[in-house]
Structures are given as C-alpha cells and as structure tokens.
C-alpha cells in the first residue's frame, strides 16, 4: 500500500484497498449534472412517453408486437419503443 501522504496527495476521495492480495485504488465517482440538449430531452421524453402508455395500448396492438417478438431476443415493448421512436425496419 502507498504511504498515507501519497494517498493524501490525490485529489478527491480515493479508496485504497487490497483485493485478493492486489492493491487497488478506487476514486469515488463525481456526478456533474447538466441540462440535456433539446434533442436529448426530446428523445428522453419520447422514451418516457412510450413506456408510460405501453400498458394502456389495446391488447390487439400488443398482440402484434408479441407475435413479432417471437424468435427474437427482444420483448414486445422493445419493438414498440423502436417502432415509435425510430420505426421498425420493414
């Protein structure tokens, strides 16, 4: 392990520890909040919107996405979100 004064020389809070005999250092993440851009916000709102109302859609429409999701690793809601925001590749 490094000496304490070396550790104190680092900026911010750094954890030093040993993991299976290996010295490790971990810097605590710092979150720098910022306002999303217009396009980011639009994308976020669209994503939130489609996820919020997905459960309200008629069963018949959900059934179509369920049918399309068969045999793929995707869920019906994945396809719904893609169809709404970007369109599916037909």
């Amino acid at each position, binding site marked *: 392990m490094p000496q304490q004064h070396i550790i104190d020389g680092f900026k911010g809070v750094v954890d030093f520890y040993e993991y299976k005999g290996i010295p490790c250092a971990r810097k605590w993440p710092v979150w720098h909040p910022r306002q999303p851009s217009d396009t980011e916000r*639009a994308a976020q*709102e*669209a994503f939130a*919107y*489609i996820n919020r*109302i997905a*459960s*309200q*859609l*008629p*069963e*018949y*429409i959900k*059934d*179509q*996405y369920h049918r*399309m999701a068969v*045999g*793929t*690793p*995707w869920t019906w809601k*994945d*396809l*719904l979100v*893609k*169809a*709404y*925001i*970007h*369109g*599916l*590749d*037909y």
Partner: protein
Amino acid sequence: MTALANDGQPARITPMPSNLWLTTEYAHSWLENLLYVACVTDVPCHLWLRWTDKEEHIHPRQKDRRGVLFLSVPDYCFVEWQEVEQNEAGDTIHHTFNFDTWGTCQRRWWHLRGQIGGADSPSTSPIFTAHYEEQEKAMSLKHTDLIDKNPGGIIDHADDSVTAAKLEPDLDGQPKGLNADKVDGKHLTQILLADLQDVSDAPSDGQVLTWDAATSLWKPAAPATGITYDTPFAKYPCDTLDGWACSVDAAPSAITTSYEGFLLTLRNDATAWARMYRRYGGIGLMFFDRAIKQLWLARPYGSTASVDWYLIIGQQGATTHLFGFRLYNGNWFGFWRGPAGTHTTAALMAATAGSVYLLEAEFSPATYVRFRINGGAWTTETLDLPNGVAAHGPHIYGDNGSAVTKHMYIFHIAIEQATWWTS
C-alpha cells in the same frame, strides 16, 4: 386491460407533441372481399397502409460496438408491397382504409407509415395480418357494428379490442372473450348521448342531430319539414294538352314513407285520371289508374337513375298525344308535350349540357314512335296496337275503361343501353 383513472374511466393517452405518432386503437371488419381498417393515433397524422401478400420473415441483425457484436432489432422482410392511402384528407386522428380485392383464403400483412404536417415520420405501426376467412368469425359475433361493417364502432370496447384470440370460437362454436356489448366499460344501454365525443349537445324535444362538417360535430337542429318538389317540372304544365287536364300535384295529400311524392296528375274528366309516382328512395315508376284501380310499377331495366327516361303517350279518341319527361339523377324534368294533330317531330329541350334529345312520333295513321340522341340513329318502336301503341317493349299503361277513347301509356326507355323496358 385498460388502466383506469381515478374516476373509473379508462385512462386517456395524452399525446406528446413531436414528429412521432402511435397507433392507440385499431380494428378492422369485412365487407365481402373488402377489409375496412380503422385506427386511431395519438396525434394528427396522415397514414398509408403498406401491405403485401408475401409472408414476413425475420432477419436477425448484429451491431459491432468496440469489437463486440450485439444483437440488434431484426429486419422484418416486407417485400412486393403496395400502399393504400387513408380515406381522410390531411392530418387526422381517426384513419380509415378501404383494403380490397382480397382473394379467397388469402392472407396479407400490413403496417402503417405516416407523415405529420407533410413531413415523413419515422414511426411505424406493428405488422398486422389477417386472413380472408376471418370474416365469418367476425360476423358470428352478431355485433351491430360488425354486421354494419363499421370498424370504427368496435373500437374502444371495455376489453379494448377485437383480438384474433377472442374471435376464435369456443367449444360451443361461439366466439369467446369479446365483450362486445360494452363501450368504455359501460353497457351500451347506459351510454348517454352527452358521452359521445362528437356530439355538441343533447337535442331538446323535437330536435334532430345534424352533422356540422365545419366543427366535425353532431349538432341539434329543427327537423326538416315537408318534401321538396322538383320545380323544373312545374315549368311544363300540361293543362292545355288538347282537352286533357294535367297538373303538377305540388301538395299531395297521401304521401307516406313508402312514396316520395306525386309527380304528375293527368286528368281528362272527373272519372278518368292517373297519377305518376316515383318510388320512395327508388328509381322506378308507379302508375296508378284510378278507373281500373290498378297500380303498376315500372322498374328501370339495366339502367341507373341518371339515364332513365320515361315517355307517356296519351290517346284520346283518334288523336294521340305525347308527353315526355325524364328522370335524371333523381329529378324529374318535363321536356316536351306533344301538340294535337296528326303527327309531329319535336325537338326536345336539352337534357344536359351539350346533349339534345329528339322525339318523333307519327300518328296518322298511328305507326311508330322513335327517339334519338345527339343526332344519332333513330330508335324506332312500331305502333301496332289498335290504339297505336307498341305491342312489345314499353307497355305499362292504364286504361280508363272507355275502350279506345282515353288511354294513357307509359314508355320507359333506358337510353344508355338503348333497350326498351320490358316487364
């Protein structure tokens, strides 16, 4: 099931303004080999229905991210497609499509694409599919809107939609699962007029609902009264038709729902007269001869309302008179009345712009009646009955029972087909 708001009603989807659209409701129903498709979107947009009869295939896709392959949303193979544009103009919330020429037992796949404000939107609907055989299952539901081929009417049921699973018959052969007698969770008998979105106000006593295209609302209004008669016909009164008293009966007293109204009354004395009727909502003729108390019906043969012509020939004594009129697009127009005398060739009034119809008759001796269109070849019918009326073809007539002295004959001529009506 639909999520319910606090008031117990299905939660409304609040659209988000963007260039994206979402199909929030969908239904379809059949009329013979035509599929009516109706859907609702969360924002106004203009949709196209893109369809194919080639079965869809899924093509998995991978994306390379920093050297690692990830599965991506697959391609859905949609080939040899055609498009049907929505029936409504402009950007709308409600969309309908007439999706026709289905073959027997044919299966098709389709999805929706759209524009918002004339600009392409990236959004797409899921792929729908149907089999022509579904019609019988839909009809078996015996739901009014399905029978009326109104897909818009079967949207918004309490259980949200008509699904293929619900259309499947159960062990008793009846469709299962579709609670088609409810709308928004209420029985149809519980729905009030005020609950309907496109009704402005409930009508008061005696009022009817009329459609206001400007606001797209049903609005209360006073009901229309009376029947509007064809005023052009009144321009040709025949009250001097060589002793025949003829008039337009503008205010018939015996109008019923079965008959649209009286057209013409011909009368030569107090006991012999006849009236012409047009069938209510129809294109045939009713001819009633009071003297013999018979009602005759002349149905146009192989023609439509726009090309039906009728010709009345009246005969009094040794003199035959012509009185012609036509049924054009539901309206009646007198076009000529024949003078007294032995024969005549008369140019008739222009029936439509650029079209002149001629009628000629020869009655001394009574030999023929003929007509032509726009200077074309004459079509002649020989008058070989004792009273100078063609023995074949047109023979709806009434006889007032006084031998040869007074007769009225109605000829029906389907001009377009150049054939005479026969019973």
